[in-house]
């Protein structure tokens, strides 16, 4: 009877949807972890936590102008990472691809003739995505042709992109007075429209949602999505049994991933900052990795985890402003969430074997 009992318990556990269990865990970490961490650091936990909640969810304005605006680039970089990792491509370079997209979108938006066109924002987004895809394409080429581990090449390219932006805003794209290391402000016609009155929420948020839905549908329901999942799960089987061109599919995933990150950069410029400067991204590309992992590389989940991280970071800014708690506290919370997740729910199909496909890592530790 023991066995049947065990089966019953297993079935019962399986009936609780896995994402729900994960959400419970995350809420637990947030609800207990943040006040506890604040307490340990010697801050007053309750007012600080209250400031965090007020700044992220406290009012309609906080939700739309802080949380959703902040979540937009995180959803996109999260999707970028999720698609690459799904296909066994360890693209750690969303940050650089985002910067490439932001730089290209700025350059286009500042072209004299174009700046009064109604279509300009749309063109800027396309150009930004292209630049991001191109930037990822460099690493993709190095991976396929020269077997350079993409984990390393994308990180190196992040630094190159950062210095490139630094050069652009002090050189060709610098504002006309040549005082500040930033570009001119782009014309109002070149900006993304606001979608709600009396808020900073811009059309880029809708773009991010549309991209997420498209990504979800493509990965789940199309042949290309199947190939992506197949090479991520087991490249050898995909090659032999599925007759899939692993290198080609991986390269496509890599470039699409870069394009989505580039799109995020273009949206930041045309929807939020309206100018290019060096610190335009407070690490959106790196946080995107956390967003994707929390969502277990599922596009629909990325929207949820992107919103969560957006709220967390928006709240952290408010907490720093109102309660004097350094906003970097959030990085600790993010790290704890990821570490807890990878220990409690080891990724079996997606990332675990993706490391094998990318040839970047070894086997998991033999015991």
């Amino acid at each position, binding site marked *: 009877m023991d066995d049947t009992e065990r089966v019953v318990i297993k079935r019962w556990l399986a009936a609780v949807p896995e994402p729900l269990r994960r959400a419970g865990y995350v809420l637990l970490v947030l609800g207990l972890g943040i006040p506890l961490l604040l307490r340990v*650091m*010697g801050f007053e936990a309750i007012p600080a936590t209250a400031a965090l909640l007020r700044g992220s969810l406290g009012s309609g304005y906080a939700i739309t102008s802080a949380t959703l605006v902040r979540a937009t680039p995180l959803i996109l970089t999260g999707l970028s990472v999720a698609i690459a990792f799904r296909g066994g491509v*360890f693209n*750690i370079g969303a940050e650089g691809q985002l910067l490439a997209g932001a730089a290209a979108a700025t350059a286009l938006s500042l072209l004299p003739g174009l700046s009064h066109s109604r279509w300009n924002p749309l063109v800027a987004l396309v150009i930004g995505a292209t630049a991001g895809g191109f930037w990822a394409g460099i690493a993709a080429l*190095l991976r396929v*042709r*020269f*077997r*350079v*581990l993409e*984990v*390393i*090449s994308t*990180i*190196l*390219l*992040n*630094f*190159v992109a950062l*210095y*490139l932006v*630094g*050069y652009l805003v*002090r*050189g060709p794209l610098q504002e006309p007075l040549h005082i500040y290391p930033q570009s001119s402000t782009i014309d109002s016609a070149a900006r993304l429209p606001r979608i709600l009155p009396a808020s900073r929420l811009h059309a880029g948020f809708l773009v991010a949602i549309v991209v997420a839905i498209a990504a979800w549908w493509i990965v789940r329901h199309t042949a290309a999505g199947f190939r992506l999942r197949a090479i991520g799960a087991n490249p050898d089987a995909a090659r032999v049994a599925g007759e899939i061109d692993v290198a080609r599919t991986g390269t496509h995933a890599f470039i699409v991933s870069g394009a989505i990150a580039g799109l995020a950069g273009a949206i930041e410029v045309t929807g939020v900052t309206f100018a290019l400067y060096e610190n335009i991204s407070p690490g959106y590309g*790196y946080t995107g*990795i*956390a967003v994707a*992992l929390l969502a277990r590389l599922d596009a629909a989940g990325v929207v949820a985890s992107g919103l969560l991280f957006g709220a967390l970071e928006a709240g952290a800014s408010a907490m720093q402003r109102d309660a*004097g708690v*350094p906003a*970097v*506290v*959030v*990085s*600790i*919370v*993010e*790290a*704890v969430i*990821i*570490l807890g997740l*990878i*220990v409690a729910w*080891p*990724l079996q199909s997606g*990332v*675990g074997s993706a*490391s*094998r496909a990318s*040839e*970047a*890592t*070894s*086997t*998991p*530790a*033999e*015991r």
Partner: protein
Amino acid sequence: MIDQVASRTVATAFAEATVRTATPLILASTGELLIERTGLINIGLEGVILSGAFGALVGATHWGGGSVLGLAISACAGMLIALIFAAATLGMGADQIITGTAITLLALGGTGTLYRTLYGATGSSLSIDTSARLAIPLLSRLPVVGVALFAQPAITYVAFLLIPATWWFLEYTHAGLALRAIGENPAAALTAGVPVNRIRFFATMVAGALGGLAGGVLVLSQAGTFVEGMSAGRGFIAIAIVVLGRWRPLGIGLAAFLFAATTSLQYVAQALGLDVPYQLILALPYLLTLAALAGIGGRATPPATLARVE
């Protein structure tokens, strides 16, 4: 005559900058080499270095121990982060890349938070006495390379000696052989009675200490202060250097110097007043590393279980 003096000054500055930049890279990448020869990869080296840098600050200011204690604390801080990596990957079988990413995030947030909590939110720049230089008689008075090579803080000599020491360890000691065996074929090593997990754990901890020291060097013998995120990608560079050095100690030493020399070109460009955009010179070492990685692409032989290149 004046031109000659000037060019000698530039060459001296270049040589010194090269050695200064190479020191933490040698420490960190030698540690990473040990891990990778056991078949693991710690992408979180960046976080290890950053924690080491912060540990050095705490050691030098709070316990007032100066640079020796500062370095000891920085090694401990690095080992602490490495311990988290070991616990997650070796202990619980978590994915190495994801764990590495997470511990870098953790170190970034942790050191930033602690820094602001302990030293004030404004981040008023703290100044620490940098380590005393240990000049070797006669040799330190050689032209151009004298100061660069022979009048350095003691830790620089340690880093230099680490290269042949690691080579000797890997080639000629029993433990070194065991370590290499694990990277090539863990199952066979286990069958032969090699304690695979224990050696992997030790390698991870030694690498943690070395990575921490690399961070300590940044604070104690270079910057003289701590800045949030001051590791500035050196952890990732060190990982690239391991590949560039083809997983061999001597190769790694060479690659570290190559990278450091390219980085130091900025001083030459400044001194000569070259009209090259500063940011492009800063990007040069990264581009060069990429090009070099592409160049050795198929010919490097990583430990068999690290990168399964057919």
